[in-house]
């Protein structure tokens, strides 16, 4: 595995937690983002993720570098899956280890916020009655509200 990667197969989060653990780490935070069945009353059947893979991995790597600068002593691994994902499956995993817990929480949350700003990955929701690329300007069926 790479510390920052786009993958097409199911994610085993424990591999990323193991990757960041070191003898000086007292705390590991592991975030997993999962496909939700219900979002604002609309039932999702499954999701499809697409990425601009080389740029996405470069941006994940950059986020990791930002984290090491902001929280020295942390170690990070991030993976995002693309392709079709079923309900409950893991889309993204972020593992952070740190000597102290505060940094592990803060750095981990920073990572997911930056991923959502920066990394060229797109989510398409597939419902019973339609599909939508999330993040774009089109409206959802039956709702008329942007996510």
């Amino acid at each position: 595995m790479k510390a920052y990667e786009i993958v097409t197969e199911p994610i085993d989060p424990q591999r990323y937690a193991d990757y960041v653990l070191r003898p000086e780490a007292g705390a590991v935070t592991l975030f997993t983002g999962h496909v939700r069945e219900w979002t604002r009353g609309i039932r999702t059947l499954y999701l499809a993720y697409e990425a601009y893979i080389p740029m996405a991995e470069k941006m994940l790597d950059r986020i990791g570098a930002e984290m090491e600068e902001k929280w020295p002593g942390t170690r990070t691994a991030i993976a995002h899956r693309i392709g079709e994902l079923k309900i409950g499956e893991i889309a993204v995993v972020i593992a952070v280890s740190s000597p102290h817990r505060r940094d592990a929480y803060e750095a981990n949350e920073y990572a997911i916020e930056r991923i959502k700003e920066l990394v060229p990955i797109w989510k398409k929701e597939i419902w019973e009655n339609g599909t939508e690329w999330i993040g774009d300007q089109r409206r959802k069926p039956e709702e008329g509200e942007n996510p």
Partner: protein
Amino acid sequence: MITIFYFAGLKEAAGTAHEQADLAGRTVNELLEWVGKRYPQMPLDAVRVAINEEYALAEDVLQPGDTAALIPPVSGG
């Protein structure tokens, strides 16, 4: 020539994932104008452009051989 990449909804609007165009010497803004004329239905409001896998500024100038990717609002995570 430069290579233009389209993703997500933009790819569906363009009907292609990538194409080549003679836009070397033009700015990112001019690239977006060119795309907007070519695909009038394409939603470009919130689109960012990456040149060679780095986000670019509106005034950055395209060089021969560059890859320009149109990045609609991202929704990873």
